[in-house]
C-alpha cells in the first residue's frame, strides 16, 4: 500500500529560460511534484520562499545581482536547498552550508529523483549556523565585496565601497550608508573578519570605519579622540582603535 503523501512543493530558480524548461521536464518525469513558482533571479526567489513556504528550492548559483549562495544566506534557515549549476567548483562550499544536494548541469532525471528523495527523507532540516551561511556567501580567500541585508520582504545588496561605517547594536550591526542605516543580524567582530582589513578599520569597540570616508581625527580630551567623517559624522576613537588607524595610514 502506498503511503499517502502530498506532492513535494518546489521553487525553481534559474536566470536562463531553457534551463528552467529542462528542470520542469525532469520534474514531470520524476512525478509527484508541484512547482509553486519559477523565478528568474534571486530577489524573486526570496519573495517566493517567503510567500509559498516551499518544501525545497532548486537553486542556480550564477545569477545577476544575487548569486545562489547569497540567496541561501537569506533563506537558508527556512527551507532546504538543492544547488543546480554547471560549475563543479562550488561543491565544497555547497556542502559547508549543508545544501541537501548539488546537481551538475546537465543532469539526469534519475539524479534529480535521488536529490528529491533526500529532501523527503530529511526528518528535519539540519540547522545551519548563520555564520556558516554568511561565510559561504563570499568567494573563498577573498574579502566580502557586497553585503546582503534582508529588510522584511525586501533584500538590499550593499556594495562594501558604499558603506560609510558600521555600528554594533547588541546582536545586530547597523550599516550606515549615505545617511541611511540598514540593520543585519550579525556581530561586528564577525563582519570585521570578512571585510578587507586594508579598507575597514575597527576604531572602537562599536565602530568599524571605511577608511575612505575619514576626513580627520581630532583630539578632544586627554587620550580621547574623535574621527570626523567627510559628511561631518563624529565617531569616538578608542586608544587601541587609534593605534590601528595609525598603522593603516
Amino acid at each position, binding site marked *: 500500500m502506498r503511503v499517502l503523501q502530498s506532492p513535494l512543493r518546489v521553487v525553481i530558480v534559474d536566470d536562463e529560460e531553457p534551463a528552467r524548461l*529542462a528542470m520542469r521536464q525532469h520534474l514531470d518525469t520524476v512525478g509527484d511534484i508541484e512547482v509553486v513558482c519559477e523565478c528568474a*533571479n534571486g530577489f524573486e526567489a526570496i519573495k517566493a520562499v517567503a510567500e509559498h513556504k516551499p518544501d525545497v528550492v532548486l537553486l542556480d548559483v550564477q545569477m*545577476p*545581482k544575487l548569486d545562489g549562495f547569497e540567496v541561501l544566506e537569506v533563506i537558508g534557515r527556512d527551507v532546504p536547498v538543492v544547488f543546480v549549476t554547471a*560549475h563543479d567548483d562550488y561543491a565544497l562550499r555547497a556542502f559547508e552550508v549543508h545544501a541537501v544536494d548539488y546537481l551538475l548541469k546537465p543532469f539526469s532525471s534519475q539524479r534529480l529523483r535521488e536529490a528529491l528523495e533526500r529532501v523527503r527523507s530529511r526528518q528535519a532540516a539540519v540547522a545551519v549556523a548563520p555564520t556558516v551561511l554568511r561565510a559561504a556567501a563570499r568567494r573563498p580567500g577573498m574579502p566580502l565585496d557586497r553585503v546582503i541585508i534582508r529588510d522584511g520582504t525586501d533584500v538590499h545588496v550593499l*556594495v562594501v565601497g558604499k558603506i560609510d561605517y558600521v555600528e554594533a547594536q547588541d546582536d545586530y550591526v547597523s550599516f550606515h550608508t549615505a545617511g541611511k542605516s540598514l540593520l543585519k543580524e550579525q556581530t561586528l567582530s564577525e563582519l570585521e573578519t570578512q571585510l578587507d582589513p586594508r579598507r575597514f578599520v575597527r576604531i572602537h569597540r562599536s565602530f568599524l570605519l571605511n577608511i575612505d570616508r575619514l576626513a580627520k581625527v581630532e583630539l578632544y580630551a586627554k587620550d580621547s579622540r574623535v574621527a570626523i567623517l567627510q559628511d561631518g559624522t563624529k565617531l569616538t576613537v578608542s586608544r587601541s582603535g587609534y593605534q590601528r588607524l595609525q598603522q593603516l595610514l
Partner: protein
Amino acid sequence: MQAILGSPRRLQLHLIAWALVGTLLALLARTGFGVTWPQALAFGVPLGLLAAPLSLSALFLARAMPLTRTATWRVGVSAVVASVIAASVWASVGRWWWKVLERMGVPADAASSPSFISLLMGFGALAYLLSVTVHYALQAVEESTALAQRELQSQIAAREAELRALRAQVDPHFLFNSLNAVSGLIAPDPERAREMVQRLADFLRSSLTLGAVPRIALERELALAASYLEIERVRFGERLRVRIDVEPGLANVMVPPLLLQPLVENAVRHGIATCLEGGTIEVEARRRGELVWLTVTNPRDPDGGRRGTGFGLDIVRRRLSGAYGTHAALAVEPSSESYRVSITWPGGAGLTEHAPV
C-alpha cells in the same frame, strides 16, 4: 663564408685589415733594407692585399675542421702546414715583386739576402696563423648567435602555440550550460534544439581549426564571435542583444586567431550575465591610420563588485605582444555601468595578405 664574403662591408673591412698588414710590412722593409717610404709602401701594400685571397684558405680550413668535431692536434698541424705553404707562395711572389721594383730603383741585393726570405716567410706564416685564429673566433661567434636566434624563435613559436592552445580550449561551463539548454528544448521545441546542436558543433569545429593557424582574416574571427553570441542568445534570450559594426574594407585584415573570442566571452560572463535586464554587447572595428582598432563594450551591474581574474585578458595581451611587439596594445576602460576593452594592432597593407608569422 658569410663571415667575410657575405656583405660588401665585410669584404671591405677584410681588405683594409690586410692593407694595414701590408703597411706594417712596409715599415719593416723600410727599417730593414734601407728603402724610401714610397718604395716601402709600393712593396708592402700590394703584397698585403695579395694575402687577402690567400688567407681565405684559412676560412676553408676553419670550416672543414670545426673545433668541436676535430682533435686539437690535427687542427694545429693542419694550420701550421697550411701556413707554411701559403707563406712560401706569398714569399715567392714577394721576391718576384721586389725584383720588379728593382727597375724602379729599389736596392738590388736585398731580395737575395737570407734575411729577406725569412722575414717574408715568418711574417706571412704568422699573419696566416693569426687569420686562422680570427676565422675560428668568427665562426664561434656566428654559431652562438645563430643558436641563440634559433632558440629565441623556437621559444616564441612554442609560447604562441601554447597561448593559442589555451584559447582554443572552449570554456567547459559554456559547454555544459549549452548542453543543458539543449536538454531543456528537446521536448517543447525540437526544431530549436536541433538548431542549437548544429550551432554548437559549428562553433566547436571552427574554434578547433582556427586555433591551429597563425593568422586569420578578421571577418572569420568576427563570424566565430557572432556564432558564439548566437548560442548564448538561446540561453539568455532577450537579455542578450548584439551590435556588430565593422568599417568596410577591414574584412581581410589579418589577425591572430581567437583574439576577439575571449573578449566577447568576458562580455557575456562578466557583463550580460550580471545584469537583471541584460543589455547590448557592441563590437566595433575601425581603421586608424596604419592601425586596426577593435573594441568590445558591454554593460555591467554597478553593484556587481565581482570581476574575473583577468586571466583571459592577460593571454590576449601576451599574444598581441608576441605577434606585434610594441606595435599592438590592449586597453581597458571600466566605468561603473559598462566595460570596454579595445585592442589595436598594425593592419597595414603588408599584413592584409596571407602574411607569414
